[in-house]
């Protein structure tokens, strides 16, 4: 319970620092400080699901605030947020978690690069959502179908 309060305090400080940086435009001190505080909070050992969601929610607010000023810095913070939420505070992740964290982060980076270099925002965004969502649904569905056939007496 004590770790939980420490973590919430860190996250609160990160959010306040981010909000305080907003009036100053592309602030070179406050936002890196906020990002640092957030990363420390995210890496603190977590105990329950609520903390994961809290980390993710505050982290995304931070990402939006940072990316609004510096897209590259926002992408880096985004990777930190996802890594923290993925490993539930037990970083460094095990080898098996790494199998999923690394492709996830690579995909995020690729998406960010595309958004950064594209002339417009909406088209790449919609294409990414449709392609990523559709291919994931198909791949997961096929995998689940094969598993069900295998364990219900059919051939995989």
């Amino acid at each position, binding site marked *: 319970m004590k770790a939980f309060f420490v973590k919430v305090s860190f996250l609160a400080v990160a959010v306040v620092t981010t909000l305080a940086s907003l009036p100053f435009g592309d602030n070179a001190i406050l936002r890196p400080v906020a990002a640092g505080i957030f990363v420390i909070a995210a890496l603190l050992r977590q105990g329950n*699901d609520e903390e*994961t*969601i809290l980390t*993710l*929610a505050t982290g*995304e607010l931070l*990402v*939006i*605030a*940072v*990316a*609004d000023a510096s*897209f590259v810095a*926002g*992408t880096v913070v*985004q990777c930190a*947020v*996802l890594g923290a*939420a*993925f490993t*539930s505070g037990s970083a460094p992740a*095990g080898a*098996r*978690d790494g*199998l*999923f*964290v690394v*492709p*996830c982060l690579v*995909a*995020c980076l690729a*998406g*960010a690069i595309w*958004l*950064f270099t594209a002339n417009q*925002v*909406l088209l*790449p*965004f919609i294409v*990414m*959502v449709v392609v*990523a*969502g559709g291919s*994931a649904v198909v*791949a*997961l569905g096929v*995998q*689940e179908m094969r*598993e*069900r056939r*295998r*364990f*219900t*007496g059919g051939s995989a």
Partner: protein
Amino acid sequence: MEPARNARTVGTMAALFGAAAIFLESPAFCLAAISLLVFLIALAFRFRYRMHRIVASAAVERSANKKTLPQGGTVVILMTFTCRPEQGTSVAVREIPAPGTGSDAPAHVVPVGPDGSATLLYNLTPLVPGKTAAPGIVVTVTDPFFTADLGMTSPPFRGPELEVHPHAAYERARTRSDIAAREKNRASVERGSNIRSFREFLPGDDIRSVDWKMTAKYQRLFIREFMSVENVPPLVVLDVPGSEVAVPDAQLALLINSANKATATAIKAHGSVSLFIISGINVLSILLQERNPQRCTAAILDAAQPQARLYHAYRLKNREALRSVVRTCGRAVLREIGAERRFHSRIAAVCRKSLASPDVPVFVTQVGKLLRSVQLKEIHLFSLFAGDTSHLQEIAFQAQEQSIRVLPRAPEGIRVSLPGADPAGVMA
């Protein structure tokens, strides 16, 4: 695969950020939304990978306390599930109910322990004759973001196969020549007048016991030894409630305790007791002139749970009631004239025709045989008198016909009434 609360929250956040990105055309919101979507997809793949590892390592072992049983009988099944647990996931397992069986297992979902094993002990009651087997299990894997069920019904997860023998609701009425052939080992009720054995005369023996025929044949004095006489033990009938009627556990416990106490008291007072355990018209156990109270207690405890009733008496023809109608109508035919006489005559003819059918409910035959084979003065009838009570009416009618007193017993607070029977007539 279903999203859990966390995944739904993340999905909602992604949708909100996506909507904001479309309205504001902001790359920052686009980044947040697409990152959350990719995050969810990665979590989903991780979950599927973990689940695959768990189910691929799963093994089930089942053992049954018997391989062959009668329709409506109960078999105890012990199911042991083992798997290799994955960090961050919880696993639960439950049995898939076999078709045509009654079981208490589907209600139980057993969580798999940290060592990856789970054990489930349950009763299975096959209701349909033939071969039956547990069809498999359902494994539920849960992590903080997703949950999924997988039915595992391939051969390694099925079994064991049970052979269920049919239990007939009807049987052919026997002809007189069949009844004449009496079994030798059947318990005799004519004690006291039968000769148990002969032995040579010893000084002090009553000379009235000398068997003069044996003495003349062997030229030595032989005397007869008669069977001993004992009080007529009562018949304790325990009617276990059916599983379709909701019965409080306390009431059932009271009923079982009362019946057990009655058997113990009867053995103490009369030396033996006959026990007839039924659930509706389904006979669970019969003990004739039992002297061992522990055997009675074991039989009662075996049946001490709501039973799945294969047959119900209200579906069967009440032969005693039909005979009663025939008698009443026969008297009315002698008494009445005209249309009423024709009416009663017609009713009697219909009832006679129905009675002429050779198919007799097995329960009716069993009760008749039981009441005839054991000399009885009274029946202690333990029941909750809830739900279908037609079988109690059948017992009461047959007892009434043989002048046996029926003493209905029920736990406190339950109104005792034998349906369709005249209590005064039954008690007399």
